[in-house]
């Protein structure tokens, strides 16, 4: 194709441009119309805005994983939020209230739970002996009592967790409880690694022989090994072995989420801030569960049962003691022979022999304190040959008067004292038949009547030498006989409820003056009375000297002597003459 000549150019150009224009309009008329419309749409901001608003949600949704979009939007969102907060805070409050409410409630619940646990443990241990010891510890160490209680009831508490880069020993992340004592965690991390390396070099060599735990006072350090990181936790107390699994899980999760950061770690640990929640989950603790309190009803039943058991035990023991005492008493009781004594678990059998004169075993049983209806006793009669029983039996059978004294000398029953003749004869007959008595003796038993005794006494005369008032030693025998007779008479009088009056009557020879003789008579009578009184003649006997009222009989011997006149009369009555 040749170049157009310059001469024809203007004409040709004009024609051509018209042609071209015509041709263009013919060929491109529809596209031109579309272009014009597009131009119009682009130039119209209202229309474009409307169109973009329709596309924007879809476009943002497509770009949701694009960090660029987030970065671009963040300042605007922040600014918008900030402006909105300043302009209309109530709207934001209304918007976030549904979220913040539960969050705050949860936080408060956690805090209260911790407080309640602390309070519970404090109260629980406040009044026990252990609590008292802990109170002293709190006082001496200056720590709050609640803290001391928590420390002592603590089974274990993970106080610190270190995430350490394996090769460099540099600290990647560290968390600790509020109460933990935290030294420079970066240096601790380095030193932990150094110690781990040292142990590994010295004793290990293989991965599984790495240092996995060590004990420092009340703390244990557990070290969980990972490919690129190590998780070390400081535990107060003794954690369960299952806690290793928790640590391993945590470490595995960190390795999974931080794989690239761990491999390319160059000393900047900021990217490990996101592992903080994982580590905080390791700060576990467990306290001693308070002992399960049994229900009050069970406690009451238990106490009642125990009391019942104690009472029953005490009752059994006491009954046992009483039974033993009763058996001992029955065995030692005179006149009882115990042949059977059996305890059938609270029911008792007694059997034996019993002298009719022995203590009634029923009274011993009643006095023992044991229930009488629980004791079955059978007693067969027998005669005991113990001296006191023989004697007692003899008294029962012979019925001796009070003036008679019965005694047992071996197998001989001896009667002494004074008794009526009739009784003495009867006793002599019956006594040998008293069980246990082989022979009867009554040679010392005085027998006689009152009249006979009075006669005996009145027949006695105590003689004096001339003009003397002193009893002649030769008269001593008579005095003795006199005393003996008066005593015997006194015994009988007592038995018969009578009283005796013995009158001593002095006599003189005819020589001498009347006055002298009267004095002699009186003095001699007094001398004899006095001797009798001194020797004791009995409680029922009264001694007197001659009274003026008694007239001397005409035929009375006029010798130097003292004679006697006896009267017996009922007690309390005036004395009478001879019975």
């Amino acid at each position, binding site marked *: 194709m040749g170049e157009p000549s310059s001469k024809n150019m203007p004409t040709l150009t004009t024609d051509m441009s018209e042609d071209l224009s015509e041709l263009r309009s013919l060929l491109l008329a529809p596209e031109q119309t579309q272009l014009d419309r597009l131009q119009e749409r682009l130039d119209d901001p209202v229309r474009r805005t409307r169109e973009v608003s329709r596309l924007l949600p879809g476009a943002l949704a497509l770009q949701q994983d694009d960090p660029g979009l987030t970065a671009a939007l963040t300042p605007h969102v922040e600014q918008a939020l900030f402006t909105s907060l300043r302009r209309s805070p109530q709207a934001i409050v209304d918007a976030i209230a549904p979220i913040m409410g539960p969050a705050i409630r949860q936080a408060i619940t956690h805090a209260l739970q911790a407080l309640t646990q602390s309070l519970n443990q404090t109260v629980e241990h406040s009044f026990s002996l252990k609590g008292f010891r802990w109170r002293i510890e709190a006082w001496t160490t200056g720590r709050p009592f609640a803290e001391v209680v928590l420390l002592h009831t603590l089974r274990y508490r993970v106080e610190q967790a270190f995430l350490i880069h394996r090769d*460099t020993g540099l600290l990647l992340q560290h968390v600790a409880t509020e109460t933990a004592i935290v030294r420079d965690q970066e240096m601790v991390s380095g*030193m932990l690694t*150094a110690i781990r390396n040292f142990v590994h070099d010295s004793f290990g060599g293989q991965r599984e022989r790495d240092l996995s735990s060590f004990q420092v006072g009340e703390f244990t350090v557990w070290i969980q090994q990972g490919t690129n990181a190590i998780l070390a936790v400081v535990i107060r107390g003794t954690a369960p072995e299952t806690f290793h699994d928790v640590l391993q899980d945590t470490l595995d999760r960190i390795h999974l989420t931080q794989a690239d950061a761990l491999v390319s770690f160059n000393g900047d640990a900021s990217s490990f801030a996101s592992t903080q929640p994982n580590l905080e989950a390791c700060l576990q603790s467990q306290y001693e569960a308070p002992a399960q309190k049994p229900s009050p009803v069970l406690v009451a039943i238990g106490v009642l049962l125990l009391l019942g058991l104690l009472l029953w035990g005490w009752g059994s023991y006491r009954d046992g003691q009483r039974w033993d005492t009763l058996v001992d008493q029955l065995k030692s009781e005179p006149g009882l022979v115990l042949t059977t004594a059996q305890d059938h678990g609270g029911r008792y059998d007694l059997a034996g022999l019993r002298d009719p004169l022995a203590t009634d075993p029923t009274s011993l049983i009643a006095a023992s304190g044991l229930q009488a209806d629980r004791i079955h006793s059978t007693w067969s009669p027998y005669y005991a040959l113990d001296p006191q029983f023989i004697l007692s039996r003899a008294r029962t059978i012979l019925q001796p008067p009070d003036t008679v004294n019965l005694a047992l000398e071996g197998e001989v029953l001896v009667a002494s004292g004074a008794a009526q003749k009739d009784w003495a004869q009867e006793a002599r007959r019956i006594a040998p038949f008293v069980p246990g008595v082989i022979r009867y003796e009554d040679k010392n038993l005085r027998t006689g009547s009152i009249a006979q005794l009075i006669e005996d006494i009145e027949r006695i005369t105590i003689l004096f030498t001339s003009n003397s008032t002193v009893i002649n030693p030769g008269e001593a025998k008579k005095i003795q006989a006199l005393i003996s007779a008066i005593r015997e008479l006194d015994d009988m009088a007592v038995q018969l409820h009578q009283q005796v009056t013995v009158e001593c009557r002095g006599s003189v020879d005819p020589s001498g003056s009347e006055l002298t003789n009267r004095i002699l008579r009186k003095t001699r009578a007094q001398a004899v009375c006095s001797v009798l009184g001194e020797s004791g003649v009995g409680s029922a006997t009264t001694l007197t000297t001659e009274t003026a009222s008694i007239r001397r009989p005409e035929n009375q011997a006029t010798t130097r002597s003292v004679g006697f006149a006896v009267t017996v009369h009922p007690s309390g009555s005036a004395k009478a003459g001879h019975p």
Partner: protein
Amino acid sequence: MHKKICMLGGFAVGKTSLVRRFVTNLFSEEYHTSIGVTVEKKILSVAGENVTLMLWDLYGDDEFQRIRESYLRGSSGYILVVDGTRKETLATALGLQRTVEGLLGPIPFALIVNKSDVRDVWEIDDAALSELRQQGWTIFFGSAKTGEGVESLFSTLAHRLLKQAT
């Protein structure tokens, strides 16, 4: 930013006393003789950024093969300390440098010659040090007595570590 740095040197070159005043201590020096290392910390600001150097102060040992390799692992750099008054400590440092480089590769390090306050009794001459400088070694003179050289040593090393990291 945290970096692990090892401090190495022959027996009794004064490593610990040289840096003690400039670092944070938490652990007793007894760890030196028991497990062969104590960890100390040095925080410094480099170009507006806080850098924490975790210093693993390794127990001086003239027999380098006995250095615990596990202690060196993960180091971003290291410091060699020699005693200017004892020539053999430089030889020890050279040996240590070879060992560490063999283990960790060419990572930043610096040499500090201690006891600069008694230079008149030094056994180590400038020629030897110049030769090392020519090989690219960074060398400082330090004194435990005056504290000279230590801050610049840390600062320089921290700079190089950061530069390497970026």
